[in-house]
């Protein structure tokens, strides 16, 4: 079912590992060696972080594996949705009103 379950060399682990190192370095590069504006940098490195998370999820954690693979995927999507609501919701609510005058 999944390619990891064989005695071959664990290529996808290795690829995942190299990719994650590369993405980390890329993020550092974007942050310190380009001249994008702050918000663009955050968007780029944020996207890179999401790719890294996906690498961990699919190449190391094998989310889709097991009998309930689809449940795991739904569970992760739902959790990420909650995470977005909590993070962006809180920021929006606490910084957009005229109560926010630190």
């Amino acid at each position, binding site marked *: *079912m999944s390619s*990891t*379950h064989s*005695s071959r060399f*664990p290529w996808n*682990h*290795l690829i*995942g*590992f190299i990719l*994650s*190192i590369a993405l*980390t370095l890329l*993020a*550092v590069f974007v*942050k*310190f060696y*380009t001249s994008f504006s*702050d918000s663009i*940098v*955050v968007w780029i*490195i*944020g996207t*890179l*972080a999401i790719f*890294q*998370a996906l690498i*961990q*999820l699919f*190449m*190391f*954690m094998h*989310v889709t*594996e*097991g*009998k*309930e693979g689809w*449940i*795991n995927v739904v*569970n*992760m999507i*739902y*959790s*990420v949705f*909650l*995470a*977005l609501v*909590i*993070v962006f*919701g*809180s*920021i929006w609510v*606490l*910084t957009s009103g005229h109560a926010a005058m*630190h």
Partner: protein
Amino acid sequence: MTQANTPLEYRSHQSQMNILGFWIFLGAEIVLFSTLFASYFVLEHNTAGGPAGQDIFILKDVLIETFLLLTSSFTAGLAIHFMRNNAKNDMIVWTIVTLLLGAGFLYMEINEFIHYVHEGATIQTSGFTAAFFTLLGTHGAHVTFGIIWISLLLFQIAKRGITEKTSSKFFIASLYWHFLDVVWIFIFTFVYLKGMVG
């Protein structure tokens, strides 16, 4: 999925439930950490005259921590790979490497914290430091717990070998370990990189 093809850790119904249950738990962990992140973002600029992130973060140390943790995630994956090939000794070796890398990460992080305290940033300094140390501390506590947990499992694997039960326990611990890596990536990106001046 036929029996023979199923990885050992999925074979019994109870193991399947344990693994599924752990995934659900990870869902809860995502919510927990996103709450910590949300609070950090809200309090990030409330330094109350104390140091801000850009005053204290050191890229080099953080990068080393990141590589240690990323590598440990990789070696944890290798351990699972060998577990699935029923290579007990290789599995134990890679697990020990994973633990050492994890310990190295912790060592670096504790040093980092000590450095911050010397810079005048303790957990009581400001809203920013409270949120920062709590987010990082929660992650660090998870790593600590993971090291202890996996060490206990090592004993069990050494004693009982790779069985349906030990393999499912170990698989779950590896999920946990990878998850901590995911959390770290977001800390690295949104706390450290974002908080430093480019």
